[in-house]
């Protein structure tokens, strides 16, 4: 693995004594794409929230590009270059699509660069036709793309995607997979996803979370064949895995 862009050491989050994430040691290389899978409540989203400053860890360390960023505030972590698409789309419902993207781009770019970035993202995410519409009026799949577009507009070094295809049609899911394949050439990514078909489309390496810990880290083929993974997770996802 190249020098890690993200590393966690003993990362732990307890809620009232119950560990949601329990001593996770994790490394992600520059330009690497990793999928996180695991049953509901395994700690994947909590792990993301600690990396992005939405939750303060109970113990452990988060290193981003070698620097300790544990417990830093959300806007500072975003400025370091960490972007997240959350599980439930987190959007500016009262603003239109173009302005939402522009706000994201303008935070780190000049006015003309921001306009160029917004135009490119509108084309890449097929949102041109709804650029002038309020985000709150869009269909669920389009809302997912708007959020993804806003995160991309910042041009993050590390992109965290929490269930990016939830609620998408099969066609939208395929387009998302194609977009992620294009994006991975430019940045490191961690994708949390339950749709194993989608995971197979995009991932090489997979980390399996179970009860707040890492159960296994391996190439996708090996994970799919592993008896423990089948028992704790894939057994419950036979229909989507098939």
């Amino acid at each position: 693995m190249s020098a890690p862009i993200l590393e966690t050491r003993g990362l732990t989050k307890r809620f009232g004594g119950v560990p949601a994430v329990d001593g996770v040691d994790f490394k992600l290389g520059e330009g690497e794409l990793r999928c996180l899978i695991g049953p509901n409540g395994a700690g994947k989203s909590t792990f993301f929230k600690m990396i992005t400053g939405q939750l303060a860890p109970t113990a452990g360390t988060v290193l981003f590009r070698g620097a300790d960023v544990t417990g830093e505030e959300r806007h500072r972590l975003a400025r370091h270059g960490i972007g997240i698409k959350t599980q439930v789309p987190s959007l500016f419902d009262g603003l239109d699509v173009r302005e939402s993207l522009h706000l994201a781009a303008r935070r780190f770019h000049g006015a003309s660069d921001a306009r160029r970035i917004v135009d490119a993202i509108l084309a890449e995410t097929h949102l041109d036709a709804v650029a002038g519409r309020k985000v709150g009026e869009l269909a669920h799949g389009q809302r997912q793309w708007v959020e993804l577009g806003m995160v991309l507009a910042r041009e993050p070094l590390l992109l965290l995607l929490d269930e990016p295809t939830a609620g998408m049609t099969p066609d939208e899911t395929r387009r998302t997979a194609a977009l992620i394949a294009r994006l991975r050439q430019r940045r490191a990514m961690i994708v949390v996803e339950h749709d194993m078909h989608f995971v197979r489309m995009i991932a090489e390496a997979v980390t399996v979370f179970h009860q707040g810990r890492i159960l296994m880290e391996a190439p996708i083929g090996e994970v799919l064949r592993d008896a423990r993974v089948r028992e704790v997770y894939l057994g419950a996802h036979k229909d989507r895995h098939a």
Partner: protein
Amino acid sequence: MKRAADRIGIAAIAILGLGALIGVPHVVELFTLVDVAVYCILAILALSLAFVWGFGGILSFGQSAFFGLGGYAYALAVINMGESTVPILLGAIVPMLFAALLGYFMIYGRISDVYLAVITLTVSLIFYHLINSTAGPEYAIGRARLGGHNGIPGLPPINIPGNAAAQLDYAGTFRLSLGALLLVYFGLRALIASRFGRALVAIRENELRAELLGYDSRRYKLIAFVIGGGIAGFAGVLFASWGSFIGPGVFGIAFAAQIIIWILVGGLGTLAGAVLGTVLIQYLTTWLGQSKSVAALIGLAKIDTSLVLGAVLILFVLLVPSGVIPTLRKLWLGRRGASA
């Protein structure tokens, strides 16, 4: 289409405002001129809360505290200095400094919206009780006595900067009040359209998302709160100068609630709504207070304006929940959409 409607609205307000600035003192009687001047001053106060609440998402229930602080700072300074230029500046700066201090603890302490409303109102009520207990002659700053519940009377009118003898007459006070209202209105519109303003609106829409995109929401909200405090303070200066008086009533709960009603009636999230709501409610209050025939009609000697204001608020919340301006805008756009 919405932008075209906005442009027409701005042009109409600018033309009407300038026309009123020039023409009104020539055509209305003195009593009306004085009334309209105070409507303008109170509308500036309403604009300060319309900005802080409607665009910054901060419900400052005690916005009257900054209004009162501005008025008292001006009154104490002008009595001691005799000339109004520096006192006017102090009337804006003192509330801004206080807003910065109070806002820092509330906003950086990540106090939730409801508690923030309660704290601001409590602060205003603390000022109310504090000032009320300063009736004795020992409570004085220089030559100016705080006056307790009697307030500070006999304040000189605002003068031309640098010339204490050139004091504004009623027409001058009206022109200053309306001019200031137009300046604050268009200034806030420009601020909301700026990069800062759009980020502020985004934070109001979704603070978490804004922060995950790299915006420090607390900084933006604090700046908005301080600007709102300064504008409210400036309105307090004009109010004190208009009536030659400032008293602790401006810190009271009735006045604080009235500002909220102005905005809810006009429409939260609009600036024009704040102005319209203020004028409508103030006109209604004045008219009911003076109109003996209306009182006689319902068999009363006098109409309790607080009851009427409460009824107006309930009616608006039930029948026009988004307020006058957003409702009119929706109707207008709906009709245009239907005819297109």
